[in-house]
């Protein structure tokens, strides 16, 4: 397939997007349904041409057509097939095309799904999606075209190859997952704008985007967790979250989206918080674009700055436009967004949800402030002051603990008002469980936020268990079912409710994992073959040093035996020191990389890094870390995904 066709397809998609917007605007004015159908089909046409150009670029990456600059920059003949596929999102122009590709998938689904539904909303939904597509089409057509030919006056026989940090299977999955989350919020945003344009602020538009929001939230959550997993496996600093600007960029929309997922329940059930929900979904989408801006602009120094560029001002302008247009619309429609109902009591589920929402937004603001502080300080005082993890931890740990507590409190509150008797009945067992746990943890010797986090985790698990038990009890009493049948029926008949509780269990497990960070231990040392050193009660003996050549790198492999303080065998670890692009005659272009090996248990991880090698004397320079409870973060992540899937699973009506 000729690469020129890829560029032409992008041009056509650009033209179709403008035509689609114009056609639908005329339809809104004169109501001629033929124009609506044409606008709808033009929208499908945009997606068709975007799919075509994406598949052409993928094909060029696979066949290593180095006549295309993008292919030559991010792949080489040695790049394994899977990473040729993932190279689509390794560079700037490719990743923007990938953004557009995912958006086009979602736009197609939205158009096809609503062919006979939401006739009032759909024209503006399609227009909003087409405008977002148009923005990315402007970028990929005129600013950073992925089909640009190689700027060389000789035949390029081999490409640069992919950054070794990106040659990891998690990195092949993490960006698409995160993008699915980011882009997924375009659909709820488009529905929100459409509801504002149509003055239709009833709970119905909320119900039609609830599933979309959950899907986007699931992908965003999974993307963030996979990113943490990649950082832990690949970056070699022993952690999974560093409050890096790009990590924060994905965390901020997650916070507002999580708040939105909670508050739409109130709009669905009570028709309250209309204005608040509108603001939350607009903020979430704007933060998604802002996240892409942070990743792509290079305005922040980050471990993710693989593709720093000059796109910053364009993205920032788009974010401001989104905010100005959306909030102006909200202002103009403020009378429609006013709810007649009010929160009646402080001890009601509505107020619990609202409080939880406020905490999420405060946390989002704290992360936003910390992330942008270097830019703000440079603009105001001329010096770039970087805010590091201590700032974020100091602010966010207490806020996180409040959220954890609210996770437990919320389900026990009744709608409208919780009576004093109900409060006593519902809270006695969970509070007692939390207090007993706190006493036990303090007796063990834990202190401060560790005790609070662990005992709050116990409290929340107790509240969730209480909720499950009360539900089972009600069913066994009413329908005379067995406990297992009652549990299964109860979950399947109330998927969003119990799916949500399962997500909360996942969050609790993740908090347990985060808390384990307080007990991390590490040591750096060097070993000759046969020598031994000790870390955190474990003995590390270097048994062997070997070397091997693989398709895309050269590796030195260390064989380390780990035994515990009783001398019993624990495991063998094989961390590697690798040189990527080892065949490159230019020594400066060869890239060293440490490939870790981790021994993971529920209790703790033994994390080994082969930092350097002294070949002449046969010495391996190692760093060993013992990280307690990390596995609970990943287990929590799995549970979160399962819970969301349950909440998402379609039901028969």
């Amino acid at each position, binding site marked *: 397939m000729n690469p020129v066709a890829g560029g032409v397809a992008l041009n056509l998609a650009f033209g179709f997007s403008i035509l689609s917007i114009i056609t639908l605007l005329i339809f809104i004015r004169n109501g001629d349904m033929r124009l609506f159908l044409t606008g709808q089909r033009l929208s499908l046409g945009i997606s068709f041409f975007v799919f*075509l150009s994406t598949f052409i670029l993928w094909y060029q990456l696979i066949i290593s057509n180095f006549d295309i600059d993008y292919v030559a920059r991010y792949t080489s003949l040695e790049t394994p097939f899977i990473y040729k596929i993932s190279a689509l999102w390794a560079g700037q122009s490719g990743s923007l095309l990938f953004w557009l590709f995912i958006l086009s998938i979602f736009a197609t689904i939205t158009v096809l799904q609503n062919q006979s539904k939401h006739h009032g909303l759909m024209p503006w939904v399609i227009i909003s999606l087409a405008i977002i597509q148009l923005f990315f089409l402007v970028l990929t057509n005129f600013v950073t075209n992925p089909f640009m030919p190689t700027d060389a006056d000789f035949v390029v026989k081999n490409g640069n190859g992919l950054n070794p940090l990106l040659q990891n299977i998690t990195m092949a999955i993490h960006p698409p997952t995160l993008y699915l989350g980011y882009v997924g919020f375009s659909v709820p945003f488009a529905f929100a704008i459409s509801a504002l344009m149509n003055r239709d602020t009833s709970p119905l538009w909320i119900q039609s985007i609830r599933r979309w929001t959950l899907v986007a939230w699931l992908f965003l959550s999974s993307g963030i967790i996979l990113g943490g997993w990649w950082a832990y496996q690949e970056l070699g600093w022993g952690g999974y979250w560093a409050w890096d600007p790009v990590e924060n960029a994905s965390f901020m929309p997650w916070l507002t989206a999580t708040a939105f997922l909670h508050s739409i329940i109130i709009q669905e059930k009570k028709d309250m918080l209309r204005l608040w929900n509108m603001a939350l979904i607009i903020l979430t989408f704007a933060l998604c674009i802002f996240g892409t801006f942070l990743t792509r602009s290079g305005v922040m120094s980050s471990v993710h700055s693989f593709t720093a560029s000059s796109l910053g001002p364009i993205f920032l302008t788009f974010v401001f436009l989104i905010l100005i247009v959306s909030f102006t619309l909200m202002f103009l429609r403020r009378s429609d967004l006013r709810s007649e109902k009010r929160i009646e009591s402080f001890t009601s589920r509505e107020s619990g949800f609202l409080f939880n929402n406020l905490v999420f937004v405060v946390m989002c603001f704290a992360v936003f402030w910390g992330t942008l502080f270097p830019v703000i300080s440079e603009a105001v005082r001329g010096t770039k002051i970087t805010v590091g993890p201590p700032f974020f931890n100091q602010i966010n740990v207490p806020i996180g603990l409040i959220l954890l507590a609210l996770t437990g409190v919320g389900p026990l509150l009744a709608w409208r008002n919780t009576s004093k008797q109900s409060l006593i009945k519902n809270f006695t067992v969970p509070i007692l469980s939390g207090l007993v746990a706190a006493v036990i943890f303090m007796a063990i010797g834990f202190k401060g936020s560790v005790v609070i986090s662990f005992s709050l985790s116990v409290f929340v698990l107790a509240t969730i268990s209480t909720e499950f038990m009360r539900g089972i009890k009600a069913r066994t009493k009413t329908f005379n079912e067995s406990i297992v049948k009652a549990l299964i029926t109860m979950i399947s008949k109330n998927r969003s409710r119990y799916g949500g509780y399962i997500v909360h269990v996942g969050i609790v497990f993740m908090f347990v994992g985060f808390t384990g960070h307080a007990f991390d231990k590490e040591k750096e040392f060097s070993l000759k073959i046969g020598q031994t050193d000790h870390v955190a009660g474990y003995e590390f003996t270097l048994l062997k040093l070997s070397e091997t050549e693989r398709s895309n790198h050269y590796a030195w492999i260390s064989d380390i035996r780990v035994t515990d303080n009783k001398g019993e065998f624990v495991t063998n670890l094989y961390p590697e020191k690798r040189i990527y692009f080892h065949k490159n005659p230019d020594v400066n272009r060869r890239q060293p990389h440490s490939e870790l090996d981790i021994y993971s248990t529920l209790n703790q991880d033994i994390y080994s890094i082969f930092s350097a090698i002294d070949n002449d004397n046969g010495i391996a320079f190692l760093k060993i870390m013992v990280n307690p409870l990390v596995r609970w973060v990943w287990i929590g992540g799995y549970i979160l995904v399962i819970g969301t899937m349950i909440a998402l699973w379609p039901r028969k009506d």
Partner: protein
Amino acid sequence: MHFISDYILVFIFFVLPVIFVIQPLFLNKINNLKNKIDLPSLKRKKRLLYRQIKELEMEFDIGNINQKDFKISRKELKIEVSEVITKLNSNKI
């Protein structure tokens, strides 16, 4: 041969989408669906209201809501669902 295959590609990737897009413009005038009652949305609303009634009953069964609030909310939801059913029935006729 190469020349012919280029034309086929242009036909498939450009001419066909354009025909697909402009085809509705040659249809006789279609009524504006926007002004019609959105039946699928009404049916969906009915299903959601039924679901809300069931959820409310469950909240009451497990003790998350008192009897007075349960009765008021159930009555409100029932009135709402009957309005939707009336709209649906009138549209059928």
